[in-house]
């Protein structure tokens, strides 16, 4: 089976949900025209990243009747869509969320678990943290969806792998940082290193979509990529510019790589669970 991907490495306009929806629909149309079956947008693609006090006015409820969510659901009848938004619940709580839409339905919503609140980041001030990391079934097999800091921690990808995900979709709004003498920024090198590590360690596909553009002097580096089950980049190296990056991937590579390298077959999550319980119990954590 093949998966024809479009990575919509866009520059969202801060706080302007309507303008961003229009951009999504334009990229979706372009992806369809390019033969993509799945198009992926970055973290908070509908709102921009440093929303601060704009959170309540930029947030939406993920229901068909919502004027911003509805058109995306409708568009998903012809192409699967992953996009990022601020999710509002009925009690005025907000999360950084990503939805997977397909066939006019919401297949899955992931709420960002790890909210970086250090250095230049201040997410914990505005958002509630998600509590679950769960894989879900799509027409391309079982998929896992994480947002930025979620995959800077090793446990959420591991949980998704254990839950059956063969394709990891990572979205981010990763600011550029760490200019040195190297060909890439230190921040980009780090993300690319861990994505290759996840592909290698999980013998899975790792798809990363990162935004571009600027917010108050912070640049976002793009560099959206696909890593195959052998840990090699299948799509890589498109930095800074807004673009629709396309990539057709042979999902049968999963079986071939795992025949050669049965890391998944030999993985022992029961041992992990047992030892985690012991370690946490022994340390006195609950």
């Amino acid at each position, binding site marked *: 089976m093949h998966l024809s991907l479009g990575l919509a490495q866009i520059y969202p306009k801060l706080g302007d949900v309507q303008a961003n929806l229009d951009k999504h629909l334009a990229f979706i149309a372009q992806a369809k025209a390019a033969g993509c079956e799945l198009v992926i947008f970055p973290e908070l693609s509908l709102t921009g990243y440093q929303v*601060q006090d704009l959170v309540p006015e930029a947030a939406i409820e993920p229901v068909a009747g919502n004027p911003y969510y509805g058109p995306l659901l409708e568009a998903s009848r012809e192409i699967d869509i992953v996009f990022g938004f601020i999710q509002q619940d009925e009690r005025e709580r907000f999360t950084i969320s990503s939805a997977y839409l397909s066939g006019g339905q919401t297949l899955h919503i992931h709420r960002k678990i790890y909210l970086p609140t250090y250095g230049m980041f201040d997410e914990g001030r505005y958002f509630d943290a998600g509590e679950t990391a769960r894989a879900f079934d799509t027409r391309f097999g079982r998929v896992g969806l994480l947002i930025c800091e979620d995959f800077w921690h090793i446990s959420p990808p591991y949980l998704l792998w254990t839950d059956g995900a063969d394709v990891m979709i990572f979205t981010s709004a990763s600011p550029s940082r760490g*200019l*040195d*003498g*190297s060909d*890439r920024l230190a921040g980009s090198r780090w993300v690319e290193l861990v994505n290759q590590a996840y592909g290698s360690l999980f013998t899975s596909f790792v798809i990363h979509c990162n935004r571009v553009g600027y917010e108050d*002097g912070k640049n976002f580096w793009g560099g959206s990529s696909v890593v195959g089950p052998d840990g090699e980049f299948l799509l890589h190296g498109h930095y800074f510019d807004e673009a629709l990056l396309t990539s057709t991937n042979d999902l049968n590579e999963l079986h071939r790589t795992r025949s050669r390298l049965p890391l998944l077959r030999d993985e022992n999550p029961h041992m992990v669970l047992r030892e985690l319980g012991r370690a946490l119990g022994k340390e006195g954590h609950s």
Partner: protein
Amino acid sequence: MSASITVIPGHAERPIAERLVINTVTARRMLTGFIADEIGKTGMKRAVLGLSGGLDSAISAYLSAEALGAENVLAVKMPYKTSAQESTTDADRVIEALGIPSLTVPISGMADALIGQFAEMSPMRQGNIMARLRMTVLYDQSVAFGGLVMGTSNKTELLLGYSTVYGDSGVALQPIGDLYKTQARQLAEALGLPESVRLKAPSADLWAGQTDEGELGFTYADVDQVLYLLVDERYSVAEVIAEGFDAAFVQKVWRRVKMNHFKRTMPNIAKLSRRTIGHDFLYLRDWA
């Protein structure tokens, strides 16, 4: 016996000066993109900048011309009567190389109108007056030309507070404010700035014979390494001294950084209400 064992040493820790090397291709791309983006967001497409003939304003001019197009960058020369002739000559070299429009607004008359009202005025007071008059001229040209006032401050001087508050620090955007002076020099070379601009001693040119390094009492090469460790790498003062830097020098540098922090922040607003500008009324500058 032990003579037969091969010992292979690992890499030595990289010298600090080497860690200040930047990829100038990436820097150039990010900074020209920043300038075009930041000005475009305001609905404008032009910039105004004071061109002194020195390195930093020349870099800002090159980046601005590349980002906005030469015709959209107005270089303003604002000499005072004691300004060195070679400053004007170097500014002209930049203007000519870039093909940008330019304007000369001498500030001697307006500066002396104030300076002359006081019998004894220190060079520092006079220098501050000149810097603030230049800011006034640039903001006036900003309206006349229809462009934002381009900053020219580098990270070294911003951290040391080697600037005049509301003078050279009074600008709309700071493209090279995250590059140390020694890194700015690397970018200048990559941009192809005239050699006379790149190689001369940095100076605020506020009085005859003034040089930054003479006035500061240390070299940029040294202070950049100390600042890099303190700020970028979060070394403690004691850890920087342990790297072999003179203790009094390191302490002096860190004291300057701290003492001049007010120049890098907006004035504090006394909080009274539930929601106060600067405290909990939180939107990006790019919001509007």
